[in-house]
């Protein structure tokens, strides 16, 4: 008879935190993220139905989780769950407070907009192409006009601030791309810059730069980019639009 193999108990959060903070093991950090994502999802659900897709709220919450892991003090006797919860909630609340609906949008349109992201993704998988307005409307049991209005309502909702740090936003981020743009452009340089958004590109957070590179350098579609970085196609669209506008504004 073969002796039973001793079962290896999973590493505790504390062990993983030590591996990350002391040994610099980013794999341990990733394990912690994966382990606590259900907590983020659970907290994000509390804020669903406020006019933004649940997945987008979860993503904001995940930023709070990452910050909690990074800032965790090993000398404190508090569990990561306890420490992370207010960080995640705070990040989500800050997101809603700072980046809410810029103009008054009827609740019905907000709700329709929130449903559209998931619907577009489902239909993209089903048809293996981007769905038409009519197909989205049929799926949501509404009219093409309502879909178009809801899409437009979505543009009234500013998502991730491009003035925020590379982590995606937060009051504590020090990095401000606006400040890293030179202010001593002479007329010649401005004329040159009209043709190229490159200087402003360098000032964008890493994720936005990567999205622009994938779209305009590698020629990936929004759907492909969305799959790669784990956000919705509509979110990719909004980030591209905001990034280009912000870059252009910096050059004028």
């Amino acid at each position: 008879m073969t002796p039973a193999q001793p079962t290896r108990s999973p590493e505790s959060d504390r062990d993983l935190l030590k591996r990350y903070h002391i040994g610099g093991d980013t794999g341990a950090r990733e394990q912690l993220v994966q382990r606590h994502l259900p907590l983020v999802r659970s907290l994000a659900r509390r804020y669903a139905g406020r006019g933004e897709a649940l997945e987008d709220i979860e993503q904001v919450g995940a930023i709070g989780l990452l910050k909690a892991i990074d800032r965790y003090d090993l000398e404190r006797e508090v569990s990561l769950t306890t420490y992370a919860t207010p960080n995640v909630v705070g990040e989500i609340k800050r997101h809603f407070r700072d980046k809410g609906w810029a103009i008054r949008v009827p609740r019905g349109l907000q709700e329709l907009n929130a449903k559209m992201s998931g619907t577009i993704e489902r239909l993209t998988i089903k048809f293996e192409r981007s769905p038409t307005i009519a197909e989205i409307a049929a799926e949501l049991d509404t009219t093409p006009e309502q879909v178009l209005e809801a899409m437009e309502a979505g543009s009234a909702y500013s998502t991730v601030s491009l003035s925020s740090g590379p982590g995606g936003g937060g009051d504590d981020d020090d990095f401000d791309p606006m400040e890293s743009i030179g202010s001593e452009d002479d007329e010649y340089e401005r004329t040159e810059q009209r043709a190229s958004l490159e200087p402003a590109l360098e000032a964008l957070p890493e994720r936005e730069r990567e999205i622009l590179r994938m779209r305009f350098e590698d020629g990936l579609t929004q759907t492909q980019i969305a799959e790669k970085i784990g956000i919705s196609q509509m979110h990719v669209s909004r980030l591209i639009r905001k990034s280009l506008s912000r870059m252009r504004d910096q050059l004028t």
Partner: protein
Amino acid sequence: MRPDRIALETPIERGWEPVFRLVLGGVADRLDLGFEDLDDIQLAVERLLAEAGTQESVNLAFEILPEGLRTRIGPLREHAIAEALQGPEPRPGELTLRRILETVVDSFGVEIVDDGQIMVILNKRVRKR
């Protein structure tokens, strides 16, 4: 036969963008354009309007052709747009107006119209389903 055509004059100010986006959305619905294709054309027009400089308004025309949608934007006084679109190929990694348009529409061109002003033409094919 003259193509179906929808034209409007719109202020360039960004706050008016939802108006042309809604019109384009209606055209896209009529043409059975996919969501991403619609988003591409909207982005192309937005970027051109952003470069249009100090002029107050611009004419937009959307022409429904058998092969797809043609968008005319102009006349524009800002010659830097023509230079940006007709200039040398962007370097690898360089993000220019030209590269943006090359990505989001199937073809584009610049015509000189009255008083040396320019008209930008964007073509987007409708993909067969």
